[in-house]
């Protein structure tokens, strides 16, 4: 062991020696103060190409029209795309809007966010509270609830589709019980319900983990003090546990909202592209359809919708950062 460690040390020394001369040379040229930026540069280049550049391109495209992909061939249209997206007699009635699918998608997304955030938060909280107790096989359950998080959204969509299909597992089970089969994914109510169910099942493990970490950070002697103070279990939950879990609950709430607004892949696979009809068409899917799926490649309109969604997410993120700082202090 000691010899292996010694060898590793020597190898590391050799590598360091190899780099020492060129790095010293660079330092002499650019000066010590600029060295940190040299080390940040590779990462910055990657971020630039895959994050900042696409953002800039999308913002640029949002002000252009036509169906050409090359920005030099695209006519500048000013705020036309935004005007088209926002032109509406009543925002409550998507049909009255010029771009009715956009507003259908917004309303679908809002409903989804509302139900999904509430359901995931509740399920994750209850799960975390249970897993925080000294129950048997706790480690196994923790792993089990986290496991779906590791799967690909497409796999999630396909598994549940197979489960919910006309000839799927759920219908087979219902038939065994004598209940007539239901075509869940072709029914507006059921399909919306199951999009939320799938999303909760998929993501709850992650949020459970955050809440569990928060629960474990609550000192045990507070519960002992509460026991001596004659607090009932429900008083302990509402007066001790939940207030002290507040910071974690806030983080989970904001993260959940951001992630819910972004719903796309698993729902798209599950509902065969947002069906039935447009019952499960969400914003990201609208953007995807406008840009890449339709006969007309409406890059400008899609980019404008992206920019609008980006602004909403930006606000939510700022709120999260602000809350994060508050919690830290």
């Amino acid at each position, binding site marked *: 062991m000691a010899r292996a460690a010694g060898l590793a040390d020597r190898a590391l020394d050799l590598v360091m020696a190899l780099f020492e001369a060129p790095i010293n040379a660079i330092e002499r040229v650019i000066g010590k103060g600029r060295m940190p930026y040299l080390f940040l540069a590779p990462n910055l280049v990657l971020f630039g190409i895959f994050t900042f550049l696409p953002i800039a391109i999308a913002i640029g495209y949002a002000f252009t029209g036509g169906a050409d992909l090359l920005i030099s061939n695209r006519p500048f249209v000013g705020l036309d795309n935004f005007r088209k997206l926002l032109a509406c007699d009543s925002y409550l009635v998507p049909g009255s809007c010029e771009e009715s699918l956009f507003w259908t998608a917004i309303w679908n997304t809002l409903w989804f966010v509302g139900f999904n955030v509430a359901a995931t938060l509740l399920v994750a909280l209850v799960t975390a509270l249970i897993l925080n107790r000294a129950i048997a096989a706790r480690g196994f359950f923790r792993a089990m609830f986290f496991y779906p998080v590791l799967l690909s959204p497409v796999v999630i969509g396909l598994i549940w589709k197979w489960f919910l299909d006309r000839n799927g597992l759920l219908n087979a089970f219902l038939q065994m019980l004598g209940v007539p089969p239901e075509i869940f994914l072709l029914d507006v109510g059921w399909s919306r319900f199951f999009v939320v169910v799938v999303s909760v099942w998929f993501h709850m493990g992650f949020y459970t983990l955050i809440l569990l970490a928060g629960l474990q950070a609550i*000192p045990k*002697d*507070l519960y*002992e*003090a*509460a*026991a*001596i*103070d*004659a*607090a*009932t279990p429900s*008083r302990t939950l509402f*007066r*001790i546990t939940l*207030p*002290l879990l*507040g910071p974690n609950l806030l983080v989970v709430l904001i993260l959940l909202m951001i992630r819910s607004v972004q719903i796309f892949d698993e729902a798209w696979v599950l509902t065969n592209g947002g069906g039935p009809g447009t019952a499960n068409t969400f914003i990201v899917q609208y953007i995807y359809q406008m840009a890449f799926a339709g006969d007309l490649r409406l890059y400008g309109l899609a980019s404008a919708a992206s920019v609008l969604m980006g602004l909403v997410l930006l606000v939510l993120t700022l709120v999260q950062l602000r809350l994060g700082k508050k919690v830290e202090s």
Partner: protein
Amino acid sequence: MGDLKLTNLNKAFGTVHVLHDVNLQIDDGEFVVFVGPSGCGKSTLLRIIAGLEDVTSGAIAIGGRDVGALSPAERKIAMVFQSYALYPHMSVRKNLAFGLENLKFKRAEIDARITEAARMLAIEPYLDRRPKQLSGGQRQRVAIGRAIVRDPDIFLFDEPLSNLDAALRVQTRAEITKLHREMQTTMIYVTHDQVEAMTMADKIVVLRAGRIEQVGSPLELFDHPRNLFVAGFLGSPRMNILKGRVVIGDDRSVLVDVGYPTLLRSDVDPAKVTAGQEVLAGVRPAHFALSDSEGLPFEVQYHESLGTETYVYGNLQGQSAQVIVHRYGHFAPAPGAILKITPQDDRLHVFDPASELALGRVSGRA
């Protein structure tokens, strides 16, 4: 009534037996200190009394009522935790009120009790602050206040001063003692600090490895320790232990020969020992007298001057252990000097080396 009776109490965590057949009677209004080294089971014993831990076997009665099956809240006890365990998201006022609200007290009664406790502990200015905004000493008072408003039969303190600095510890120690005098409620106090035990207790319970070694008043335990452990644990610096043999004097008194012409006089009953029997002789550092003529030849190594007192460290030829001699005032013997020392009358403790039990008079009980 705040009297407590523990009968044949045993506690095991899995296969680890932490308390063995603990029997203890605490009278109403007593201030009792559980003291012992880390891991002796003193905190576990306190938590068992509080109802925060189950017993493996045995009975607990508070005020004559068996509380073994009762929840902590039903035992009429209040506890002050080492960490204070204040609810960080509640103001001091809400911290104090929480227990009373749980017990469905009327608002006016809650307010009256909080006002009274805040006055006693001088925490009125902080009532609307959060624990985070308070100093360690202030938090400590709030923790005590939370116990006081409950008006319990027994107060339980789990090393409450260990997070305070030295000066504050001395002050808070005195305040808790004063509080006990005013309230006359039973208090059980856990500490590993023998100074706290000696200064605060009506009754000290010395624990070692889950067993009660001795119970008695501080001075009973100091003057008449039942065994070597108690003798060594109470008193600072520790009692000096010398190896010796029993000599029966002409007047049938029991003397101890520690290898020098000077024999040490003891109060041991001659019927209990035989001449020539090996014993351990214990003398506290403060209980040596210096003399010019006769005594044990103590060779000085070095000394520590604390101003009002001086500790002289050295050894006696033929005795392996270092010997410490205490003198009041300034005293600066040169290293290598030989001092003649003898134990003061009635200050010699004699122990059986095998059983480690005291052979002389013992106060209190095991």
